[in-house]
């Protein structure tokens, strides 16, 4: 399984046809990974369904719900029934419609935060990991990056995000900034660790001996082999970000619910309104968060198993202890070294 994990970083310029072939190979790898564990497949299917639903809600929401956003129906505080799948609140909002209208926004915020954290934090990690020779200017930079990262990692990220959200006030951008400010260090640590593991492998030395420039080595050869664990972490992380967002919303620092539908703020709004007479009001957004996070976690957790050299052996069915098999943290690395 290791060899299919990452396309070999070949030095030859690829034509359009080869790119297509590579895509097909990636699809086959994905299918093999998904087939290995039914739960991973379930997670993948759920993620696809959620993605499609989000797009449909943006393009043609009436395929999913008959109501317009923020539409007051004539039913007040009705429990779940065929007309209102998740009931309505005392003001007449249809909970299912509100929850679904929040889906694209919640996904977009979670993706924005996770992607920005991955790109920003990852770049810092790559720099800190690759150019870390002590004594040089870049080595000093690397130390500075690591110290700052350590400080951020000492915070429970949720608490720091809450504190920042307090001072920034409420709003979509404020929310993104508050979480992002606490989120990037995890990627810095991850990418740095992977870079350190990869950069002394023979194929990097070979590339350097062949006269490849440092920048090109980092971008084409190191980055390629760091990418895989980062993507897996990213998949799991979207779930974590969503849960964090919901907590920030619950505390009352998210968006302003009756104006903007967002799951966390819906929870907060209905909790403040008193949930005991209408418990279904928190069920809608709560279930939405639960299902979305579960989908991404099932997928990410399964992918992580495949990457983890210890469980990979078991997955491959060899089950042999062989401490010599599968060099850790370099999945498929050396295979393309021949460049």
């Amino acid at each position, binding site marked *: 399984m290791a060899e299919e994990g990452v396309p070999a970083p070949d030095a030859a310029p690829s034509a359009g046809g080869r790119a297509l072939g590579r895509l097909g190979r990636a699809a086959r790898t994905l299918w093999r990974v998904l087939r290995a564990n039914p739960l991973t497949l379930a997670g993948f299917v759920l993620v696809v369904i959620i993605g499609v639903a989000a797009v449909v809600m943006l393009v043609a929401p009436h395929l999913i719900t008959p109501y317009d956003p923020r539409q007051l129906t004539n039913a007040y505080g009705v429990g779940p029934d065929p007309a209102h799948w998740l009931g309505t609140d005392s003001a007449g909002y249809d909970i299912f419609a509100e929850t679904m209208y929040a889906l694209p926004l919640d996904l977009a915020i979670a993706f924005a935060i996770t992607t920005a954290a991955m790109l920003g934090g990852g770049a810092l990690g790559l720099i800190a990991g690759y150019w870390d020779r002590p004594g040089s200017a870049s080595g000093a930079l690397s130390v500075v990056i690591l110290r700052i990262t350590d400080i951020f990692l000492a915070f429970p990220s949720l608490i720091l995000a809450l*504190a920042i959200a307090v001072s920034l006030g409420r709003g979509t951008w404020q929310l993104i900034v508050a979480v992002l400010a606490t989120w990037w260090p995890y990627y810095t640590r991850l990418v740095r660790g992977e870079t350190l593991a990869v950069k002394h492998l023979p194929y990097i030395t070979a590339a350097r001996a062949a006269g490849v420039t440092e920048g090109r080595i980092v971008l084409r050869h190191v980055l390629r082999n760091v990418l895989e664990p980062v993507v897996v972490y990213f998949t799991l992380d979207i779930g974590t970000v969503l*849960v964090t967002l919901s907590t920030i919303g619950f505390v009352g620092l998210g968006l302003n619910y009756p104006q903007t539908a967002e799951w966390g703020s819906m*929870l907060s709004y209905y909790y403040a309104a008193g949930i005991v007479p209408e418990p279904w009001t928190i069920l809608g957004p709560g279930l939405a968060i639960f299902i979305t996070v579960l989908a991404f976690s099932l997928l990410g957790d399964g992918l992580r198993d495949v990457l983890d050299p*210890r*469980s990979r052996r078991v997955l491959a069915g060899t089950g042999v202890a062989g401490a010599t098999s599968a060099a850790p943290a370099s999945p498929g690395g050396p295979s393309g070294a021949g460049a």
Partner: protein
Amino acid sequence: MGRSPSDLAIFIGKRLLQLIPVLLGITILTFVFTHISVVNPCAAWYPHQPIGSPITAHCEAMFHQPLQNQYYQYLVNLVHGNWGTSANGAQQVYPVVAADVPATLELVLAALFLMIVIGIPLGVIAAQSSGRWADHFVRIFYLTGWATPTYLGAVVAAIYLGPYLGLPSHGEYSQLVPPFHQWTHMSVVDALLAGNLPWTVDAIRHLILPAAVLAFINMGIATRMTRSSMLEVLPLDYVKSARMKGLSEFWVLYKHALRNALITTTTVLGVTAGGLLSGTVVVESVFDWPGIGQYAYQAIGGGEGIPNFDGAIAVVAVFAIGVVVANLIADVLYGVLDPRVAWR
């Protein structure tokens, strides 16, 4: 560089010294984030003080000073135990925080206990039946906890599970327990110190639900880590030889294999501490547990309260210290459990 007690003492001392820059960094970060982003902090910080009152005047005078002077003053106050006051200036932050921390510590330790007692055996079961239905079941269980918004889990437990199981879901004691002197501010310990068995039972019953919710949501880390390190250990020769000796599967798994697998599990204690502490913000608010998490919720302005900035800063600092200390404990524990580690 060996493993004698003096080496351990030096190791801990060094680690404590390394904490100083981290703690300084933490205060700088909280200071910067809370002081720079607000345009007119004094109006926001003391909304109930009339303009020109001594408190706002003092605050404004502070804010016209250069930032480094402000930070210095902040540090001096912090060291002297002056952590500021609540939004209306009526309540000192420090005494409240000092009384709240033990209650949260009790809750977090109880949750950690449940995570160890339930989460680790689940990890062993999953590893033992890797790829089969029990493994899938365990995975669904811990991912369910992972995917449950803390808030939803807490509310469902408090409203539905509590009455169903006959467990209380409000506060530390029931009405039957009269107020008595709290030596430690840990409900169970105080009841024990008072020498009253019914009170102790009452305190434990109040602890179960919030601790269980907190544990359920953070279970995944312990289970997953145990599973993957068990998978690493199980094929090793010493496990095989334990089997060949004719030991029962139970002893092979839980004594020989798990003992080695647990070494890795302890390293995630630091990560767990972050998750557990974050969870207390919501869990304590829903269960009305008088700890630092609920204080954080109120200080941040949850439930339409007024943000209490001094309180929020104190809470962030306390939580960060908690994580740092948990990491230190995890490192020491790791070394104690693994005889190959030399104290450096």
